[in-house]
């Protein structure tokens, strides 16, 4: 009650905390994290910590995916934006391949683009060369 010292409150209203109730209340949350009944109640109790951490990793990954989806939407809207300008123009082409998500993917993409550029140059050169040879 207001005005009474904290220690008197503790002495008069002490209750035994039953952690079994806490476990019962926590159980649905760990089912949500993906644990089974057996895992939560009967198996290694440290599994709960790993399941919680795995859930947090999944949530971070989901967030990353949604953010990336937003990037693709943004790119698509920017590509078609010229259609809706004051003087409508041809929209830009959408991305020809996915946005690289790591340095390794970026390097592979750059190599692929470089080798395609070289191939195109060689084809153009050969066509030109053959034309000159015939003519």
């Amino acid at each position, binding site marked *: 009650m207001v005005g009474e010292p904290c220690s008197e409150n503790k002495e008069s209203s002490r209750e*035994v*905390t*039953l*952690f*079994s109730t*806490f*476990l019962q209340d*926590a159980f649905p949350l760990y089912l949500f994290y993906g644990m089974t009944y057996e895992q*939560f*109640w*009967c*198996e*290694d*109790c*440290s599994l*709960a*910590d790993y399941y*919680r951490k795995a859930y947090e990793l999944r949530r971070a990954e989901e967030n990353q995916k949604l953010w990336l989806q937003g990037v693709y939407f943004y790119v698509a809207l920017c590509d078609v934006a010229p259609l809706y300008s004051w003087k409508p123009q041809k929209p830009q082409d959408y991305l020809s391949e996915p946005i690289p998500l790591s340095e390794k993917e970026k390097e592979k993409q750059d190599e692929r683009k470089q080798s395609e550029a070289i191939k195109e140059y060689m084809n153009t050169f050969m066509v030109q060369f053959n034309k000159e040879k015939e003519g």
Partner: protein
Amino acid sequence: MAKQITFKYDNKEYILEFNREVFKKVEASGITMARLEGLENNPADALEVIPELWFRAFQMHHPSVTRELADEIYHSMANKGGNAEQNLPDEEIDFGLLGALIELYQEPVAILYTEQGNTKWSKSW
């Protein structure tokens, strides 16, 4: 990996561990965290609490162990009380088998409290 107490008795390996189901049974039998915390001020209570806790610790991995065998094993164990009465620095205190048993019992609940917050804190001692 959850906390376990392991030992060999009569040429057999034993693993003591609590899961949440056994924790519930122990609490239902009247051994609550509050009662364990009160053992220091009420040592006579230990005569009832410790044997029950010790017996239940076998149930997860050795459900066929009887109370008689559990008592027999308990009496053969070394370092039951540790050196907590010797006024040593915190890092040198060893609460022995009984301290380990209580920590083992608390593990199924304590592990659910391991979620870390962001609030920084400091202590004055």
